[in-house]
């Protein structure tokens, strides 16, 4: 079995009296995509936010490799190798693709806050920017301002930004949301390539995509894990069929 990149141990998060996430444990392995599915309100997004540090945990631990990162701020986690995308595309709309990705690369180039010299003279950042852009297939769009791209391209850009931070683990929060079929197919191919050398956590509603991509599946409902294992195992899990997959058919 390959190396565990990121693991959650008994994670908990309460909002007031509501238990959004209770006692969730899961592992993300290198070269694997670990998909988390579940109905709306199951706590999937909260889980991602706990792993990325956007929201502090109420209990439990987050380990990056062997390192306990539970108390680290999101920027420190990002520096340690946790990259993420957001459910709602968060890119800098008035900047070009290149500028967006360079910003991400800059954060990890070693002199993120240097006050001297023009930002475009940071050769290390420029190189990883080019690499991330070409890996996501946006080379042609490098000079385009993000606002004027299609939704699918904007999401690709977000992935490119994550890649430029040179992550060991990538957390993707519904990367296919709102995409047309052609766009979705391109994104699925992109996500599949992301796992090379890295660990990927994928939260997604599109079941076809999930079963096409996932090496491992965790099903959540009401903040808890109700099943976990290989896609086939989960697909045939009786609790999952009643609790979730049935509902999915209706929703679709």
């Amino acid at each position, binding site marked *: 079995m390959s190396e565990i990149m990121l693991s959650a141990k008994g994670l908990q998060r309460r909002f007031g009296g509501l238990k959004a996430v209770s006692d969730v444990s899961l592992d993300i392995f290198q070269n694997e995509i670990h998909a988390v599915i579940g109905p709306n309100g199951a706590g999937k997004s909260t889980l991602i936010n706990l792993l990325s540090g*956007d929201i502090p945990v109420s209990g439990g631990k987050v380990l990056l490799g062997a390192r306990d990162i539970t108390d680290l701020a*999101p*920027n420190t986690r990002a520096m340690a190798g946790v990259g993420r995308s957001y459910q709602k595309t968060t890119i*800098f*709309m*008035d900047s070009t693709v290149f500028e967006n990705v360079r910003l991400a690369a800059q954060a990890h180039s070693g002199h993120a*806050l240097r006050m001297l010299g023009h930002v475009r003279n940071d050769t290390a950042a*420029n190189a990883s920017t080019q690499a991330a852009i070409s890996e996501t297939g946006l080379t042609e769009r490098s*000079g385009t*301002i993000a606002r004027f791209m299609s939704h699918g391209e904007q999401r690709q850009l977000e992935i490119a930004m994550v890649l430029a931070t040179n992550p060991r683990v990538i957390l993707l929060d519904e990367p296919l949301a709102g995409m047309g079929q052609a766009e979705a197919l391109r994104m699925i191919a992109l996500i599949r390539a992301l796992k090379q050398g890295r660990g990927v956590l994928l939260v997604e509603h599109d079941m076809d995509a999930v079963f096409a991509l996932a090496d491992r599946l965790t099903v959540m409902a009401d903040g808890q894990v109700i099943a976990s294992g290989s896609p086939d195992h989960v697909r045939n899990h009786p609790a999952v069929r009643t609790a979730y997959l049935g509902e999915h058919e209706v929703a679709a």
Partner: protein
Amino acid sequence: MNRSLTQPTNLALGLVLILLIALPFFAPNYYVQFASKAMLMGMLALSLNLVVGFGGLVSLCHAAFFGLAGYMLGFQSPESAGASLWLSLPVALLVVAAVAAVIGTLSLRTRGIYFIMVTLAFGEMLFYFFHDTKIGGGSDGLYIYFKPEIALFGQTLIDLDNSRSFYLLVLASLVMTAGLIRGLVNSPFGHALQAARDNERRALSLGFPVFRLRLMAFILSAMIAGLAGYFSAAQFGFVAPQMLGWHLSATVLVMVVLGGMSSILGPIVGAFALIGLEEVLKSAFEHWKLIKGLIIIALVFALPGGLQQLTRLVLPKSEGPHTGKDSDNQPVEADHAANLGSLSDPMTGLIQPPMTSANAKGLQHV
């Protein structure tokens, strides 16, 4: 097309600079002093714009840093001679930096409306500190009888008592400050600061230490405000608690918005415009403050983008100050860039008009 549109701007800037350098050699002393004052306000506005315009942090305590540096000069000035600038200026700026570090550390734990209120409260704390204690002469303030001395081996290099020399030193400082801010805005630091302004969460998840970034910007900007305050105290030979009051902070904020937050030199234009306007109003009306207030209200509603917006209304679109760069091959985007300064759009662009996609296009060839 690129060249033809940027060159006139540079040419105009050069002409303005030459005019400013020449001013004390032909203008009456009154105007020279007035221009010194306006330039110092411009410097204060520049400093504020670093945090407000590029950092997205509406600070209402910059007058306190301005005044604090003035008091520091006052404390260091003997009654019978001028303080040495070599010593008194660094001391003043270091004290301001230390105070800004404390205020910034506390204030930057908050966001939005809280940040405005907290900075205003801490600024007023300094005001009351000098107002209520005897340290700085209480509400009467402190006289600085002699201007600071700039000497080397006992030889006076620049005589600040000469209003022309003083003016030229202030002009040089202003040009250097503007250059510094321009450099900062284009540096990795500046880009990170603007990223944190546009989307704090995103900046954090990319790995930027947003708090530290903002604190650095806050302290730096406070020091520039201090530089302006130091010279201002030297010019008038007097410091009083009013120098630290929040009404000055708010007035400088008006200058920043009036000149346009999205540009580097805008705040200086705003400072000259507002101070000039005040001067005219003062001479014409007894109740000029009423009119000033109405003008500020009108500015908020009619010109949220400041005077830049006005020039865009007057000039044809393609010749607007910042639209030219992109207009040759990306008209839509250039048009958008022209609207970036608008206050009504809180999500103004990460990269400001003077350095839009032209930079990136250049980079593709790297």
